């Protein structure tokens, strides 16, 4: 999988920030609420207009048609939206192995969307995003609605997938313990800049 590079990006309160994401590596981003984490992810997914360059495989964002870019650099928002009746119709391809790995029964794709709990929605949104075969992942608090056990199960599953497919990954997280468990690199938003934090493994 290619590298994802952010060069001199300005979005919202953030000014000219630069960093790069190596394939198969998880970069955690944290910061107080309202500091612009979600907007940063939206800018990288090209859902908000912004200044600066973002490159995938050394090719700038603007060189891709917008929907091709978003198909490759998939953003999984903290609150997922569902439009169809059943879970399965939201997947590009059936995802039996991912569902099994997350402890969902075989008939999950036939489930009615309006009966999903928030925790189920959050995990199924990850499965849905992966069914589109991305090249990079932007995860906005992917375990916010999950209990402790499920959180660790999802973490292990995601880490294995990110290593296997070598996705460059941004993972917005709040909990210090979680960041210590998953991050290869940790950036925090301080004012209008990103600050590198040490990781104690």
């Amino acid at each position: 999988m290619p590298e994802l590079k952010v060069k001199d990006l300005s979005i919202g309160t953030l000014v000219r920030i630069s960093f790069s994401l190596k394939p198969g590596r998880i970069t955690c981003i944290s910061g107080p609420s309202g500091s612009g984490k979600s907007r940063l992810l939206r800018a990288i997914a090209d859902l908000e207009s912004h200044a600066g360059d973002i490159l995938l495989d050394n090719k700038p964002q603007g060189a891709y048609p917008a929907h091709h870019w978003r198909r490759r650099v998939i953003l999984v928002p903290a609150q997922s939206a569902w439009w169809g009746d059943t879970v399965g119709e939201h997947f590009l391809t059936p995802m039996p192995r991912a569902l099994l790995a997350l402890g969902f029964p075989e008939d999950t794709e036939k489930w009615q969307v309006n009966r999903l709990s928030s925790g189920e929605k959050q995990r199924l949104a990850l499965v849905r995003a992966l069914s589109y075969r991305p090249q990079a992942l932007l995860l906005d608090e992917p375990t916010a609605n999950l209990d402790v056990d499920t959180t660790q199960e999802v973490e292990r599953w995601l880490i294995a997938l990110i290593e296997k497919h070598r996705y460059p990954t941004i993972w917005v997280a709040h909990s210090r313990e979680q960041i210590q468990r998953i991050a290869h690199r940790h950036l925090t938003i301080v004012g209008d800049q990103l600050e590198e934090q040490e990781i104690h493994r």
Partner: protein
Amino acid sequence: MNVIDLSWWQLSLAAGLVLALAVCTHIARLQLGKSLIIAAVRTVIQLTLIGLVLDSLFAVGSLLWVSLLALAMLLFAGQQVASRQKYRLRGGWSFAVGTLSMLVSAFCITLLCLVVLIAPEPWYQPQYSIPLLGMLLGNTMTGVALSLDRLTESMQRSRDIIENRLMLGQPWQQACLEFRRDAMRAGLMPTINAMAAAGIVFLPGMMTGQILSGTSPTIAVKYQILILFAIASGTGFGTFIAVTLASRKLFDKRERLRTDRLIKSKSH
């Protein structure tokens, strides 16, 4: 043709009925009385004026005056479309989209009907061209207004769904497909219902008018079929163009959803 003219006191009897209805709704506190009266007064004034205009236009019958009236009708219809939206596109785009879609559909189909199908001499003879255009424009206007209203309101309400679909890499057309489809249906449903029920549930207005004024029912039916088909295609193409243009306008070059291009109307 022996037409029985209506006298003014006969019309005022009909007006009395509307007034009675307004009084009843006022007593029942349904708050419809005022808008009912205003609409009724507008009907009288507008129709009287257009009657005078048509009388003099029929007398002159020149292409210039026919085109001027047609243009005025089009602009008024465009303004009506824009004013009926709960959410309008900023910068007069609702007016532009509405007017353009009606120009392309209602005008072209009126021209086609006049030149090829009815073929009066000359083709723009106001007795044919103005009523035909009015009927097409009126119906297309309703369709376009309904569909745009449905489109902008549902897209405004379902922003998170559309954005989530964009996040999964769907092109903008696909991300709002359901909303465009619903909007088209909302615009076309009255016309489809009218065609399906014509002659069974009700006699269409134009046919009734023709029969009352002495035309033989067989001829009136032929005209009515022509009119209904013209209305259906005019409304259909108009709605299609309006929905396509307006939904495109709600995304920018990078296919980002731009509901900030909508403003809420004060009157709603």
